[in-house]
């Protein structure tokens, strides 16, 4: 009975998911558009401001969109999911910042704001959507991020873009030690580019997975 209920609540149509991914992608694109055309700033010359703008646009979009997909709809309201997402944003930022620093991101007063804004953006890619969907269910978190056991379409939607962003950021750090003397080699510009590219690839890939999963489900039914 319970299982049935759960399945019902989680069975989202691919078109709905495509729409949500589109919104996420458009959110990112529009924040870039805003940065360049309205505020006339860009990532290379004004990394702090641009990163700030990026997450200020992206985080609400992601949280609002993903809160529609929250688990156990019966128990909590849409607003609560949004609140959880907002709470998850700084927590995820801390995790991302710690990870980046462990991998060698510079610390020091010059970089604090950059790291802060970058990690908030990363959190919007990775942590915030998961927080609004899974709330505080440790089992789900563990299943998704530690074991990578993806069952439902929502899992794919959250996990694959998040991994994409992290892996993209990891590869984005590669050009940093090269002596090309370009401004974009500085922390965290190329890392951000890598993360965004990884995230977008993740969005596309997860959509592919979702379509496959839903087809299997149709066959199964």
């Amino acid at each position: 009975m319970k299982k049935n209920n759960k399945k019902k609540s989680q069975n989202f149509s691919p078109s709905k998911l495509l729409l949500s991914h589109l919104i996420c992608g458009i959110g990112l694109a529009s924040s870039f558009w805003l940065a360049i055309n309205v505020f006339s700033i860009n990532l290379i010359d004004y990394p702090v401001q641009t990163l700030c703008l990026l997450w200020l646009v992206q985080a609400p979009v992601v949280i609002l969109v993903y809160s529609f997909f929250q688990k156990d709809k019966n128990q909590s309201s849409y607003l609560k999911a949004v609140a959880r997402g907002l709470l998850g944003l700084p927590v995820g930022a801390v995790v991302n910042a710690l990870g980046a620093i462990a991998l060698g991101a510079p610390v020091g007063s010059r970089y604090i704001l950059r790291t802060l804004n970058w990690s908030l953006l990363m959190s919007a890619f990775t942590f915030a959507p998961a927080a609004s969907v899974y709330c505080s269910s440790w089992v789900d978190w563990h299943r998704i991020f530690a074991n990578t056991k993806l069952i439902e379409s929502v899992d794919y939607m959250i996990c694959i873009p998040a991994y994409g962003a992290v892996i993209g950021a990891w590869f984005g750090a590669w050009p940093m030690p090269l002596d090309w003397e370009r401004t974009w080699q500085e922390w965290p510009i190329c890392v951000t580019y890598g993360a965004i590219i990884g995230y977008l690839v993740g969005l596309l890939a997860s959509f592919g997975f979702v379509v496959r999963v839903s087809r299997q489900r149709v066959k199964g039914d």
Partner: protein
Amino acid sequence: MKCSTFTLLTALAILLQITGLSLFILGFFPIKPALSGVSGPESFRPPSCASTQDQNHTALHPHQLKSLYQKLSEIPPSYDRLILLVIDGLPAEFVLGRDGQPPSKTLKDAMPYTQSLLAGKMALGYHAKAAPPTVTLPRLKAMTSGSIGGFLDVLLNFNTQAFLEDNIIGQFFRIGWKMVMLGDETWLKLFPGLFTRHDGVSSFFVKDTVQVDHNVSRHLSYELYKDDWNLLILHYLGLDHVGHLGGRSSVMMGPKLREMDEIIKMIHLSTIQSHESDHRQTLLVVISDHGMQENGNHGGSSYEETDSLVLFIGPGISHVSPTYDTINQVDITPTLALLFGIPIPINNAGHLIADLFHPLEDHQLLRAMELNSWQLLRLLQAQATDSTCGNLEDASSSLYLDAAALHGSWKSKNVLRSASGNDLKSTVLAYTEFLATASDQLSHTATDKPIGLLVSGIMTMLLSCVMFMGLLYKMGQEVYPNKQVHKFQLSEALIGGIIVIIVLSMGSSSLVEEEQYLWHFMTSTFFLVLLHQTIKSNTGNRTSQLFSVAVILISGRILKGWHQGGVNWTHLPDISKSLEILGSPYVKLLQIISILLVITLCLCTLSSLLSRGSFVILIGLSYLCSGLLVLHYVIKYQGSESETGTGTSGNDAIVAVRLIYGLIIASVTVTVIASPWFMSFESKDLVSVIKDSLYLSGTAYVFGWCLLQLLLQQSVNSMVISLLLVQIVATIYYASRSGSDVKQWVEIAAIYYLGMAGHFSLGNTNTLATIDVAGAFIGISSHSTVLSGVIMFVITYASPMLALLSMVMSVSVKETNIILKNNEVNTGQLVKMFLGFPCLVPLGMNSVLLVAYTVILLLMRNHLFIWTVFSPKYIYVVVTTVCVLVGVLIVASTVTYVISTAVFLRKKKPSS
């Protein structure tokens, strides 16, 4: 496969590796193709194909030879006497400024007399670009012979040998000059028996900045008065030592510069000015062999290191202004040779400094250029691959022909007195162009490499690498039979991935320069993945495991920030720089904390074996003792030396250091030898005896090594050592707690990576400049190349060696599922179980890196940075190979000894 087969194959692979490496090194770093013999009278004749070498000049008396040279050269010597004042390590920037800007006011004030000479146009100053490696011996060779030395000269720097190539000192000797040398004894080793009087000082006591120069200056007034010499060489080392101790902006730098200025003043006033009316003319040449980096080190190719000085001060110099400000260091040779009327050394690649010949008459200037051109042309002809004589296809020969034609027409016009200034100018220009081109070509000659030797070397190394990989694969199959379905683990894949990435990155010169980022990034990624894996797993003591990984990551991050390292971003702030700014009390405090941390860690690790009787307590006491002695040494002796720079705390310190050396070596040896015997008394179970003894021996190695490093490393680095120790102990602890989750080869690879990352945290880079020369003489009273070389190796390879030594400890705590049937003890099987991976993994990984890097070096042989970036890196790779071989040998012999002793004692027991 049996243990003996494994051992044999491994030994064979190691042997192949060594053979291949030696073959490759012989092929790649050849003794540079130099013409043998010395220049004689034939150098005053145009080069011809039929080399008619008349040998009879050797039979001539020096004075006859001198007049013969004078007749042939057609240039009267401008000077009779030469004073060569070498100031070791003085950057030209200090005297001449940089980029057209004068030097800073403080520097100007430090050398008032020299500056007044320069301002009054009494001296000609140039930036003399030194070729890397910028260390003293190859630079002295370059300045006296005019040829750019081979790369391996650096390695010979600590083992000076007589200089057999043609050089100006030898040429001076041949024309009967009396020469006096005061200063760096390198000169005496290079030119044994050529000096009438000499007083050599050793360049090896780097901490001495006062006495070393006083020993030169004390003879100066006598020699200046004495007047019987033709060449006086003064080589002052103090400035270089000041740089090594405190860097460019050391507080001792100002007084040292002032001291040097006083010496220049003294020589100038007493010799040159007083003789200006006299018929004897003296030329004073102030040169530095190399510059120094901001921190005082040198050896590489940065502007700061290669920017050396040459100042010509003499009567003829007056009122000539330099037409250019940068020359090559090798240009000094032909200039001096031509000024003093001796043949230009046969292998010279420099071209004369024309400014110095302007006081001469026009035909003499052209003659000097012609002589220089002939000499360079000869060398070019000799080096041309097709030895078809005189048939140089390149542009340089046509340039020469142009110049020669112009010279010829100028000569004929000059006889008719119709030569105009323009003719002269164009001839000079043509010669200059040829000289510059030829000199450039000679300096950059890509020397032919014996391709057969290189390929066979690489093939042999490749074969050994394949053997290692095969052995590893075989070992893996035996240890992990197919009982569990092979589950994909990211951490295992990453171990291989890291090697691939490192290999790929080595092709980029900037990634070679900044290798430390790569190692840190990769190692941290690995441990982050391990953290992820720990969260995922449900077995084991997760909290303590998570904690240990966190400790590794945090210490890794601190270690990364300790030294900025590399080449491009060295100026950025890092922990070691801020500590130095904070001052020595804080450094000392950190040093004491780290010593206490190491001692505490040591006692804690030992305490787990406390139940095994008094032997363990004894060992603990001995480490406590040596630890406290190190602490005592650090508090009492270390600070004072670096502060005052005199380093004359003398014998007490040396005795203390030797006592510590002795105590550490003795306690480690005793522990390793005695532990299986004592453990056999305490326990009956063979496996636990072996494990406990290995644990004791491993602890002994690790902590003995750490205490030694705390003594030898620079004081800022002591915290690095203790953090590295923490990392390695945490890794071992993590792996021992995770059971079969972390396979043994993964653990060993992780420790190896930690060691490599730590290598750079200690401030090492891939340039030769960061080798800590000052540390290599701690506890040595007399100069011994071998001992100081060993200590230098110990200091530089502290971290990889620590990682390798910790293998003994790591195997002892690893969970092993060896089921021993009562009386069937197969020593070979045991040895293989314990020793297989700890030996094969480091050997295999190192051999992959070695082969890959050898191939890259071969591919990059025509790269612009081959001598400055890739070759020094290759030296490091080779020495790392030596380090791995030594480490594996120690681990293997210890484990074999412990196991065989334990088995032997067990077999003896029932019978007794």
